């Protein structure tokens, strides 16, 4: 379950499913502030996932990636 706070200093978990990955790498916000890109490492390589903060859905974006990413604003 996702509990997203307002600007009141509280913390909420984001329910990321690590699947078979060993550790989390880094993250980047979407320009609209509604999604996160998250890298996850397995045996030295990463996969990128998009996590929708509104719906809680997690989607594979790119396999065998690096750990550096940036989301373009338009």
């Amino acid at each position, binding site marked *: 379950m996702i509990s*997203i*706070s*307002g*600007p*009141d*200093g*509280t*913390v*909420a*978990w*984001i*329910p*990321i499913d*690590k699947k078979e990955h*060993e*550790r*989390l*790498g*880094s*993250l*980047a*916000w*979407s*320009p*609209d*502030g509604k*999604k*996160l*890109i*998250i890298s996850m490492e397995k045996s030295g390589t990463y996969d*990128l996932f*998009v996590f929708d*903060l509104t719906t809680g859905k997690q989607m594979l*974006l*790119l396999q*065998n*990636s*690096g*750990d*550096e*990413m*940036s*989301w*373009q*604003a*338009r």
Partner: protein
Amino acid sequence: MNIAPTRFLVAGIFLLSFAFSIPVEATTFPGNNGIVAATRNAPSRIWSIDPDNGTAMPISGAGATQPLWSPRGKWMAYVRGGYVFVATPSGNDIYHVPHDIGVSDSTPVWSSDGSKLAFVRTNLTTKQSAVYSARIGVQVPTNVSGWTGKKNYRAPSWSPNARQLVYEEYSATAARLLIKDSETGTVRELTPLSDVTDSSRALWSPTGKKILFRDSATELYTIWPDGTHRAVISDGDSYNGGWSPDGTRIAFIEDPSDKYKWPRWYRGVDTYR
């Protein structure tokens, strides 16, 4: 991204004229989501990925790393062969920060108007590093931190008005965050750091009200730009924080071990106290 270092002189002549025509980007939030740029493969290339349909394609030559979109997505900065490049979204280079042999540039960060980059320059012989800034299209970057004794500099981040830079000064025994005003040239200490090993990864919030940084190896902090209100926001084993585009929230990783099923935290931040 096909400008080889041997062609830099020719490219530089072209880009000098470009410097007078580059449009300044006004930052607005929230933005609309465009494509994702990410590194992939070894040697690393930068790929563009459409987040709506997953279409991915390489847009750089080999050895490209550290992709970072400009604030409105007109340009992408990246690093290849020790040079900071600026490219179009389709991967055509339009500028690189020139330098002499013997140094290497890395970790570019955009100013909020997209007119300038700050980055770290490392002397390959002494391994000493300094923070530089460059106006896009201009051929002579500015040394922001200077080369000072045995001190090194890293982790630059612009204030939203692009007038100030926060960056880290560190040596084998001490570290601190500094803020330099580019108009007056004054430098002041923001806060001391206890961790001299890992980068603080300082990040000025989009609102300008707070600065996020890492210290004590595994904790994330925020502090006001005047040096007051330093506060820890994490609970150990935390890293890689990032401000939401509107500056009201911070997402960061808290990954103590695999025993936690949901290892990532998300925190709301009071930016208006």
